[in-house]
């Protein structure tokens, strides 16, 4: 199957190129300055379970018309280059969901992507182990051993996964998408391992909304840990008890 050219990236991700720097960042909670302690680790050090990468989405800062995160994700991972796939067959790692409460009429707009569950159903059901969770909490698909059975898509409660319905060209080196495999948000693992933030987080901040913050949930000094400690946040489908890495504020 030479047409499915897939650089050996997932392998490297699997082995882990070293967990990187905590979201090195200046951070503003109302009136308070918080500094995440940035700790660059040597590149050959394995991914550590001391770190739990996560995101916090503040839906009150996310506006209905804004699609900046989605566009940034598509660009980063080279999505949207399908030639033949129908609308329902195209890959989306992240999408904007519009909510309207049936009784109160309250509306919310929020991005939904792979929630990087601590106990991911997709990993549980995957027959080959292609779906896996790194020690630092990032859930990925090893595209070398995914057989395309789509059981993980049946199992994911967040509809976070897409199946590649056609042969693709011009893939990004860090996102080796291939026909017949399943894929989903990688939490921009290639960036995270370099100490950068995921593309959606960066784009949202650049846009001035700053509705998504990224960081190490296990690091008590990180902005994200401080925020989830101070303010009420929730998981989508908290009833399932999956302890997702992506949390939401304001819904």
């Amino acid at each position: 199957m030479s047409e499915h050219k897939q650089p050996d990236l997932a392998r490297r991700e699997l082995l882990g190129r070293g967990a990187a720097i905590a979201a090195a960042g200046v951070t503003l909670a109302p009136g308070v300055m918080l500094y995440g302690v940035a700790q660059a680790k040597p590149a050959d050090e394995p991914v550590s379970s001391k770190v739990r990468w996560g995101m916090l989405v503040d839906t009150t800062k996310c506006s209905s018309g804004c699609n900046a995160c989605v566009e940034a994700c598509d660009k980063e991972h080279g999505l949207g280059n399908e030639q033949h796939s129908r609308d329902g067959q195209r890959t989306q790692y992240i999408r904007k969901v519009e909510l309207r409460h049936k009784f109160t009429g309250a509306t919310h707009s929020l991005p939904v992507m792979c929630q990087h569950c601590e106990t991911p159903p997709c990993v549980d059901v995957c027959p080959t182990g292609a779906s896996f969770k790194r020690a630092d909490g990032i859930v990925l698909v090893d595209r070398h051993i995914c057989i395309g059975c789509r059981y993980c898509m049946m199992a994911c409660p967040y509809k976070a996964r897409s199946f590649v319905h056609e042969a693709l060209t011009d893939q990004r080196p860090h996102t080796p998408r291939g026909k017949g495999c399943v894929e989903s948000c990688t939490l921009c693992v290639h960036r995270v391992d370099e100490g950068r933030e995921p593309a959606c987080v960066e784009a949202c901040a650049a846009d001035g909304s700053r509705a998504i913050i990224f960081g190490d949930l296990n690091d008590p000094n990180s902005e994200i840990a401080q925020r989830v400690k101070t303010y009420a946040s929730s998981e989508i489908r908290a009833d399932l008890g999956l302890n997702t890495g992506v949390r939401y504020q304001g819904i």
Partner: protein
Amino acid sequence: MEIGGGKGFYGLLALLGAVIVAGLGAFFYMEHTGHWVTGMDNQIVWGAPHVFAIFLIVAASGALNVASIGTVFGKKMYQPLARMSALLAIALLIGGLTVLVLDLGRPDRLIVAMTHYNFKSIFAWNIILYNGFLALVAVYIWTMLDPTVKKFYKMAGFAAFVWRLILTTGTGSIFGWLVARQAYDAAIFAPMFIVMSFSFGLAIFLLVTMATYNWTNRPLGDAVIRRLKNLLGVFVAGVLFFVAVYHLSNLYATEHHGVQAFILRDGGVFTQAFWFGQILLGSLLPLALLYHPATGGSRFWIGIASALIIVGGFAQLFVILIGGQAYPLVMFPGYEVASSFHDGVINSYSPSLPELVLGFSGIGVAMAMMVVGMKVLRLAPASLADEVADPHHK
């Protein structure tokens, strides 16, 4: 007496061969172009091929019924039919697995599925269960054919019987363990699938037996048929019972009202498939045919009833599989949901021709194996009835 080698035999084989070749063509087409040519998408991720595959796999385990009753429960009357029953089980399973594998996104990586196991995955367990089933039933057939290993006949039969119960539990659990989806996530799927397997498997067995005896002009006692059709009726009623419990218990939980209303009332093609396909045509009508004095004694009507049960089985799996996916995931209870990724909307699915052809070719594979197997192994009872019917015969 063996299954004839005449024109009819080769004609049937040619027909089945054509179906299989068409299926292979459909497979190469879908594999080469990618799944965009199918009706499946990121919402309906399992489509028509899976309906066929799971029907055949479920039926396979049930097809072993007759052999099990003969061996495990010591009912001599059924023992002459045991070989056919066991062969049918193998044939149906291979037919179903063929479809399942050929629909994978990367069927070329089948070897990966055989070498990389995630033991937490019920799917991985099923791969082991299916292979084990094939091996056990093959041994079982061997103990029936070869007098030198006959002492293992009971043991093999018993092992196969237990194994198939586990196997169908595993198949049912593919759905029963999906916490994400409203229509699934119910432990009742495992026992329901077991009774479904009894019913579908026996219906197919009855049809195959009657057809075989008809075509080869061999006598087939009414007593056997009558027993089997009564048993079939019990199984059909059993499936109805589980279906009723499943829906009633779900109606009790407010959380599940949406999906229940969808399947039972508002689901369009799924609602029709449920009430007309599964309940009326696939359950109530066959029950009436099997037990009504005017039709219950007639082979013709028993055959019709069996065929209807098979149709109903397909309808049931269509409703469970496709209907269960058509109903959107409930991520935000109480909210109206909209997105670019089909959140909050009822998804539709229309199977493409290649998917259906691939599905039917699974039936073709099973039937072809059956026809060839019966000829090569001379499994049809008339030839070896004595030895099998009476275990002490020497």
